[in-house]
C-alpha cells in the first residue's frame, strides 16, 4: 500500500475513478464516450496553461498571469490575421509574443528579485489591461476557414485532434522535466535555490526559462481558443488561472517547489474536467462549481501539508528510537 501511495499521481488517479462513478450516478447523460471526448476540447486551453504552470511551480514560483497572457496573445493574433498576415506568420508571432510576455515575468522575478506572485499579479492586470484598452468590449473575428480546431477528429475515430496534440505536448514536456538537464535544474532551483546556484545551476536563466515556456503555452492556448470560438475578446479565459493552479497542486506538484509530475497535472486536469462536466450535465449551477474548485485548491494543499508534517514526525520518531 505504502509504495503505491508514494507515487504522486496516485491521488488524482483514484479521484478520477471516484469522479467517474459519482458522475455516472448523478446524471444518466454523463457516461457517453463521444460526449466526454467532445467536451474535453473545452479544457485543452487549461491543459496547455497547466503544463507551463507545472514547470513554474516546480521551480518554486507561481504565474498568475497565464490567463491574461492568453487573452492578450489571442487579441493580437486575431488582429494580425485581420490585417492579412498568413497563418504560419501569425503562429510564429503569437509564440514569440507569448515568450516575450513570459520573459518579462521571468526577468522581473530572476533579476529584480521580486516574489513571483507579486510580479504576476501586476502582469495579470497589465496584460489583460492592454487587451482591454486595445479592444474595449469589441471582438475581433477570426477568418472562417481557421475555425473549428476543436471539431477536427483523428480520421476514423471520435478522438479530437486537439486532445491528441495536448497529449503529445504533455509527453514532450514530461521528457524535458525527467530526462534532460534542464528538468534537473528546474527541480534543483525549486528545492533549494542557493544550493543549486553553488553547484553551478544557472538559477536566473532557469527561472526565466520556465516563465518563457509558460508564456508560449499560453500562446498556443490562445491560438486554440481563437479557432474554437471564432472571435477574440479581452475577457477570454478570465479567472482560468484558478482552475490551472488547482490542477497543478492537485496533481501532486509541491506548491513549495522542487517536486512535481506532468502526468499528475494531466490526471488532475482530467479530474477537474470531469467534475465540471459532470456537475454541468447534472444541471448543478455554475456558482457551486466555483465554490467546489476553490475548496478543492485549498483542501489539497492543506491535506498534503498535514500529510507531510505527519510523515516527517514519524520519521523523526524512527530516527530517535535506539
Amino acid at each position: 500500500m505504502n509504495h503505491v501511495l508514494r507515487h504522486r499521481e496516485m491521488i488524482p488517479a483514484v479521484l478520477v475513478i471516484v469522479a467517474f462513478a459519482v458522475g455516472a450516478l448523478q446524471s444518466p447523460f454523463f457516461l457517453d464516450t463521444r460526449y466526454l471526448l467532445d467536451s474535453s476540447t473545452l479544457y485543452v486551453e487549461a491543459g496547455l496553461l497547466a503544463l507551463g504552470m507545472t514547470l513554474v511551480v516546480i521551480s518554486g514560483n507561481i504565474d498568475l498571469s497565464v490567463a491574461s497572457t492568453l487573452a492578450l496573445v489571442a487579441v493580437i493574433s486575431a488582429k494580425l490575421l485581420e490585417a492579412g498576415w498568413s497563418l504560419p506568420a501569425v503562429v510564429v508571432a503569437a509564440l514569440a509574443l507569448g515568450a516575450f510576455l513570459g520573459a518579462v515575468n521571468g526577468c522581473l522575478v530572476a533579476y529584480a528579485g521580486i516574489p513571483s506572485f507579486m510580479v504576476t499579479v501586476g502582469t495579470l492586470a497589465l496584460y489583460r489591461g492592454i487587451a482591454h484598452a486595445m479592444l474595449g468590449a469589441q471582438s475581433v473575428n477570426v477568418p472562417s476557414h481557421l475555425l473549428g480546431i476543436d471539431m477536427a477528429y483523428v480520421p476514423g475515430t471520435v478522438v479530437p485532434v486537439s486532445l491528441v496534440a495536448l497529449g503529445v505536448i504533455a509527453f514532450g514536456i514530461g521528457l524535458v522535466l525527467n530526462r534532460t538537464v534542464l528538468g534537473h535544474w528546474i527541480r534543483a532551483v525549486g528545492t533549494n535555490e542557493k544550493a543549486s546556484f553553488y553547484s553551478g545551476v544557472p538559477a536566473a536563466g532557469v527561472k526565466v526559462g520556465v516563465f518563457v515556456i509558460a508564456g508560449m503555452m499560453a500562446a498556443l492556448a490562445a491560438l486554440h481558443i481563437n479557432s474554437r470560438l471564432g472571435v477574440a475578446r479581452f475577457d477570454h479565459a478570465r479567472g482560468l488561472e484558478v482552475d490551472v493552479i488547482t490542477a497543478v497542486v492537485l496533481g501532486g506538484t509541491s506548491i513549495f517547489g522542487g517536486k512535481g509530475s506532468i502526468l499528475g497535472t494531466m490526471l488532475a486536469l482530467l479530474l477537474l474536467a470531469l467534475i465540471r462536466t459532470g456537475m454541468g450535465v447534472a444541471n448543478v449551477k455554475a456558482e457551486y462549481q466555483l465554490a467546489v474548485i476553490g475548496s478543492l485548491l485549498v483542501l489539497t494543499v492543506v491535506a498534503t501539508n498535514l500529510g507531510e508534517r505527519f510523515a516527517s514526525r514519524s520519521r523523526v520518531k524512527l530516527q530517535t528510537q535506539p
Partner: protein
Amino acid sequence: MKASWIGLIALALVIGCAPKEQAATTSGTASGSGKKLSVVYIPKNTGNPYFNDVKRGFEDACKELGADFTTVGPATADATSQIPIIKEQIQRGVDVIAISANSPNALNQVMDQAKSKGIVVITVDSDLTGNESHRDACTLPTDFSKVGEGQVELLGKLIGYEGEIAILSATTDAPNQNAWIEKMKDTLKEPAYSKMKLVEIAYGDDEPQKSTTECEALLTKHPNLRGIISPTTVGVAAAAQVLEQRGVYAGGPYAKGMGIELTGLGTPDQMRRFVESGVVKAFQLWAPYNEGFLAAIIGTRMKSGELKPVPGLEIDALKLGKRTFTEKLELVGSPLVTFDKKNIGDFHF
C-alpha cells in the same frame, strides 16, 4: 500521505452533497399526451434581476403548455461563459434551448451543433445580430426602433425640450444600446428637439463603480447639464444614486438652476426608491416577462411541428393575444412602458 485520503473523502462528500438534479426534468411523461417537451433557458448571467422576470414568463407559459422548464446560467457575462452550458444541454437532450446571448458571434458553432441535433434554438432579448441563420427564431423585448425616440421624448418632456443632455451607456460595443443611441441622435435632429444638445456619450461598462465615476465626471465636465439618458439598468441606477448623493436632481438641495433630470431604462424594483423620493420622475422599460412567455410558446410549437415561422406569419400567443413575425423572424414582447410615481406600485420585478 494518509491525509491525502482525507482530501479524497472530502472531495467525494462535496460531489455527493451537490444538489442532485430532479429526475422529472427529463423522464417525466404527461399522461396521455406522449413525451413532455423540455425547455431550457440560459440567461446572460445569474444574479441579473432583469432576467428573473424573463424566467417567470417561461415558467408560466411552460406550465400552461405542459412542458418541463429549467434554467441554468453562467456566473459571469463573459462572451464564452455560455458555451459549456449549451454543450451540456445538448447532451441532456433538451428539446428547446432559449438563450440571451452574451456575444453575437462567439456562439455560432455551438448553436449549429444544437440545431443539427434537432433542438429548436430561440434567442431571447439579445439576438445574434448579423448571425441570425444560427438560430431558429428570436423574441425581442420591444420594438427597438421606438426605444431611442421614446427616451428622447420622455426626457424632452421633463426638461421642457431645451438644454444640454448626455447619455450614460453600457459598453462601447453593446449592440442594443448602440442601436438606440443612433436612433436618439436621429430623433434629436427633428425640429421639436432642436434646442436639446447632446454634449457627451459616456460608457460605464455596466459596472456600478465605473458607471458611478463616469456619471460624476459628466456632472463635472458639463456644469449646465439638464438631462441624462441611461439606457441600461446598471447605469440608470448608478446615475440615480449619484444625483441623490450630490443633491443636484431637479428640486434637489444643490441643484444649479433647474437641476438635472434623469431617465433611462431600469427595472421598477431598482428604481422604486428614487421615484418615490422624487430624484427620478419617470423612466421606461418593457415587460421582460412577455419575452420569456413568447419564447416558450414558439419554441415548443416549433419542436412539435405545429409552427413553422415565416416572415409575416401571425400566431396566437395565448393570453398575450396575437403576434406577428418580422422579416428576421423576430417577435416583439411588449410596447415601451413609462413608469412614474403613479404606476410604479403596480410593478414588481
